[in-house]
Every structure is written in C-alpha cells, then in structure tokens.
C-alpha cells in the first residue's frame, strides 16, 4: 500500500506540467485575422458526425476571437475521435461584418492498404512475442490479416494466422458485422492432458454503436481444440460472447486531457452450442488516463487501470486468466504465479510517465475458486522512446528478487 501511495504521489508530481508546457502565446501578433470573432463553426460530412463534446467546444468558441492554435487543437481532437477520417478546415468570411466562419470538412481517408506491426515485445523470462499484419479496404469492407506468435496473453505460446473483416450493415449504419478466423499451434512450458496442441477459432459478431463512445459487440466464438494426451481427440469450446465498451475523452482546459476506457466481457459456453466445455467467463476492466498538454505527444501522463475476472465452470486452459506478463504484475513470470492460469483475478496498476522516463506499480491476485488468494506487488522503471519501452521490473517480496527485463511497444 505504501508503494502504491508513493507511486501515485510521484506520478502526480511528475504529471504537473511545467510552465513551458502550458505556456500559451496566442497568434494575435502574427495573424491579422485574430481581431475578428468566430461567427459559426460547422461540419460538412455525409458520413461522419462529431461527438457532443466537440460540438460543445464549437458552441463555446462562437463569439470568441479567431485563434488558429485553438482551431488546430480542435482539428486534432476530431482526428483522434474519428478514425480513418481526413479533416480539412475552411475559413471564410462570416455573414456579419468582421466575423469569421469555420467549416470542418470530414471525408473518408483515402488510405486503402496498411502494413503494421501489431505486437513486438521481449520478456527476459518469457522470450519474444511478435505480430505483423496487413489491413486493406474494398469498398466499405475492411479486411485484415496477419501472423502472430504470442507468449504473453495466455498460459501457452500460440503461433499462427489470423484474418477477418468488418463491414457496416448499410452505408453510415451504426451496426457493423465482423468475422474473425484464427488457426494457432500451441506450445506449453510443461505437459498436461489439459493442454491443446492446436486451436482454430471462428468468431462471427455484430458491433453496435449505441451512443457516442458506447459500443456493444455480441456474437459467437467456435473454438476447435486438438489434444494429444492421453490420446488424440478433438473438443469444442463454443460460446456466446458479448462485450460492452465505453470510451470518452475530456479536455481539461489547456492543461491536459482525461481519458476513460472501460469494458465488460462475458463468454458463456454451453452444451446447447455443441460445446464440450460449459463455463461462464466474466471480465471487467477500466483505464483512466490523465495526460498533460494538448498535443498528441504529451509530456507527462498517469494511467490508473484495473482488471477483474471470474470463471464459473470448467474453462479450457487457453481461456483462463494470467498475471505476470507485459501488462500485469510486471516483474513476475506468469508460470511462477499460476502455471495453469486461474479462474479468479483482481489486478490494479499505476503507470506514470514524465517525458521519456516511465515508472509502474502493479498489484494483484490470481487464484482458483476455493483456494487461498495471495496479493502480489511489483514495480518497474524504464524509458520510452518513440512508443518503445525498455524497462526493468521486479517483484516486491521478502524472498529473492530476480529482475525482469521488458522491451516492447504499446504495453
């Protein structure tokens, strides 16, 4: 607890922006139009709409002096909130004398093919994880595919292919259809009849944008597991899946932004779906980020995140919870904590960054139903350069401490 308080205090101090970061010199001296007032701000688009938060910002700026830097920030926010959109700003004379009209034109981004590295990470005790893929668009349908070898998210290392598509039901529809197909070969740190050799998964889902920032995803997941021990057999883990997710960003004046991202996921496997496993897996997670500055690259940030989950019934090992990876209990090896995964998990993390220095504190517990819970703590310190973090993390405990070296992006 002391560690948690110290981390929070340190991160809060680090988050406080220095005077240069918030120093704001407007464009009154260099733009002659700064003497005019904004008459109206509008959006021209048949496919996109701005969020209520941005609309409120539009309303707030009407009647205020024209400032290019304020409009630049607004443009950045629109880009951040609406992916794959090309934003153009038009500034025109208003209808009233000495007033200015601003128009944001939103169009679909012309980018059609995108190669990307979805995963790149090295853990000194768990080795590499790597993923690369391609995204492309044909008319309204977004296709993606890629190769992946992951030794981080699940109990096993899984390597193979993933492909899928996402398409709106109709043009400008809030309802989208998605389909994912995966085929993985599993590698385990030990042998057990519970460990599958290969796994294939087909996942048809429907995504609905209920409200701005609030989305629901529902569908099915059909997993086919091939086991080798004690004799070759194939079993199915077919489930209904449903995820509710909420994301929202608030502008904290000129000083920074606050972002909330929260979600709840349920996977319910039943014999009704011809599943050999019957279980319900509940997962909840939330992340709150405070970032200084208005720019995309903030100077400092503090992220508080939590994860909790419970499994009722007998879930296959690949669907059980793990702690001790790139995002949780950094400093531990996940095989040391729960080599077969767990069916109860609670985790909390505080992650602070100031310029290129990053510090994390994690605490959490993983267990099986009816077994005693052990609360573990860990901490890490590292550097971030261009989104790649190099960190040394260690468990906080009385017995011997073996630091873990982590290197990767987006963790």
């Amino acid at each position: 607890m002391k560690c948690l308080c110290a981390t929070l205090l340190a991160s809060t101090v680090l988050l406080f922006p220095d005077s240069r970061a918030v120093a704001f010199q407007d464009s009154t001296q260099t733009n002659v139009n700064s003497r005019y007032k904004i008459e109206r701000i509008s959006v021209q688009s048949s496919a996109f709409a701005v969020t209520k938060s941005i609309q409120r910002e539009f309303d707030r700026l009407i009647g205020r002096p024209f400032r290019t830097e304020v409009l630049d920030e607004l443009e950045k926010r629109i880009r951040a909130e609406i992916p794959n959109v090309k934003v153009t700003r038009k500034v025109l004379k208003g209808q009233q004398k000495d007033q200015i009209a601003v128009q944001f034109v939103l169009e679909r981004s012309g980018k059609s093919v995108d190669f990307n590295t979805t995963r790149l990470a090295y853990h000194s005790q768990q080795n590499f994880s790597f993923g690369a893929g391609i995204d492309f668009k044909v008319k309204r349908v977004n296709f993606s595919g890629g190769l992946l070898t992951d030794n981080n998210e699940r109990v096993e290392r899984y390597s193979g292919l993933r492909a899928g598509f996402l398409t709106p039901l109709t043009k400008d529809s809030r309802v989208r259809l998605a389909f994912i197909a995966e085929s993985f070969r599993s590698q385990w740190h030990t042998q057990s009849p519970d460990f599958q050799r290969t796994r294939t998964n087909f996942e048809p889902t429907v995504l609905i944008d209920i409200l701005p920032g609030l989305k629901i995803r529902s569908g099915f997941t059909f997993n086919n597991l091939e086991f080798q021990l004690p004799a070759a057999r194939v079993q199915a883990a077919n489930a209904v899946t449903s995820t509710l997710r909420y994301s929202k960003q608030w502008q904290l004046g000129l000083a920074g932004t606050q972002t909330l991202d929260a979600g709840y996921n349920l996977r319910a496997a039943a014999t009704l779906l011809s599943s050999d496993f019957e279980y319900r897996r509940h997962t909840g997670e939330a992340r709150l980020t405070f970032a200084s500055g208005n720019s995309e690259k903030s100077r400092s940030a503090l992220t508080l995140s939590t994860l909790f989950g419970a499994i009722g019934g007998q879930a296959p090992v690949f669907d059980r919870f793990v702690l001790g990876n790139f995002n949780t209990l950094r400093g531990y090896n996940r095989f040391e904590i729960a080599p077969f995964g767990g069916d109860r998990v609670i985790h909390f993390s505080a992650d602070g960054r100031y310029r290129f220095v990053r510090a994390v504190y994690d605490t959490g517990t993983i267990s099986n139903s009816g077994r005693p819970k052990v609360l573990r703590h860990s901490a890490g310190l590292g550097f971030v350069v261009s989104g790649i973090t190099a960190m040394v993390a260690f468990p906080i405990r009385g017995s011997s401490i073996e630091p873990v070296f982590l290197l990767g992006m987006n963790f």
Partner: protein
Amino acid sequence: MTAAALTALSFLLQSPTLAQALTPRLSDNQLIAVAPALKFLEGKPLERLRNGQSVTFDFQLQLLDGTKSLARSLQRFVLSYDLWEETFSAVQLSQTSPRTPVFSTARLKAETVATWCLGRMQMPLPTVDKTKPLTLQLEIRTSGTKLANPLRPQGSVDLAVLVDIFSRPPDPKDSRITALSRSFTLSSLATP
C-alpha cells in the same frame, strides 16, 4: 563562361521555380535588393494564407563572387491574409529575442509584400574590389508543415536556425522560390 555565369546557371538548374529578376541598390552604404516583379505568394502557401492561417517564410539574400558568398542576410517573416480586407499583413521576427516581432505592417497588396520584406533585408558592403563582377541571390523557403503559432518555441528563429535551414537541401514538401540578379560591380551601383 565566367564563374558568376556558371553559378547562375547551376542555381537555375537546382531551383524548382524559374529565377526571377533581382536588382541591387545601394542605400546608406548598405546593399539592398529590389524585385518589383517577384511573385512568391503562390501555390500551397497562398492557399493556406487565404484560408486564414499564418505562413512563415525564411529569406536568404546573398552577395556572391562566383560561388563564394561575400555577405549574407537572413530573416524570417510571418504573413497572414486579412479575410475581410483581402490584404496581406507581414511581421518580421527578431533574431535576438526570438519570440518578439520587430517590424510589422498591414494592408499590403500581394505584389508589394516582397518589396516590403526585401526592404527589411540589408547587407553591409564588403571590402572587395569595386570592379569585380558580383551577383545577388535571393532564396525564399516556407515549411510544408504549418506552424500554428510562429512565436511559440518550435517557430522561434535565430541566426543559427536560419543558417541551418538554408544549408540543407530543401524538403520536397517545402515551397522554394529563387531569384538572381544580373552580374554587376559595386562601382556601377548608384546611391539613390
């Protein structure tokens, strides 16, 4: 072919735009350039100006003896376009106090902006043989990326920054305008 002519030719070949006429003048023992026909407000920078944005232009005026630079003046100007009056406004930034405008003007027509900016660029006369053929070379660059507020740190200007800008090849995204004078001698220049 003289060295000055070779320089002029190589400069023309390097330049993405046609060289435009530049005339040297003497004013209070300072060398200045006059270019009444110079049009540097065009293309994307002009579009951005007409869209209410400020655009930063970096000017370099050099006195050349063949390929050798005898004197040089470097300045940064920030222009904006008055949407209601349909005229241009210009601000010259200080090199000693980077975020401070030193001179500014408003209500300029497009064709007089270059004259005003060039009028802010003076070079002391170098000690050189007054009968030696020399040329004046003007280069104007503007960044392809917009500077929201040229007075903020990323838009700050000092001599070292400008020297660095003009010592590297122009970025393809940057807009670059060049102008060159005919060969002249200092003795041929009359004080107006």
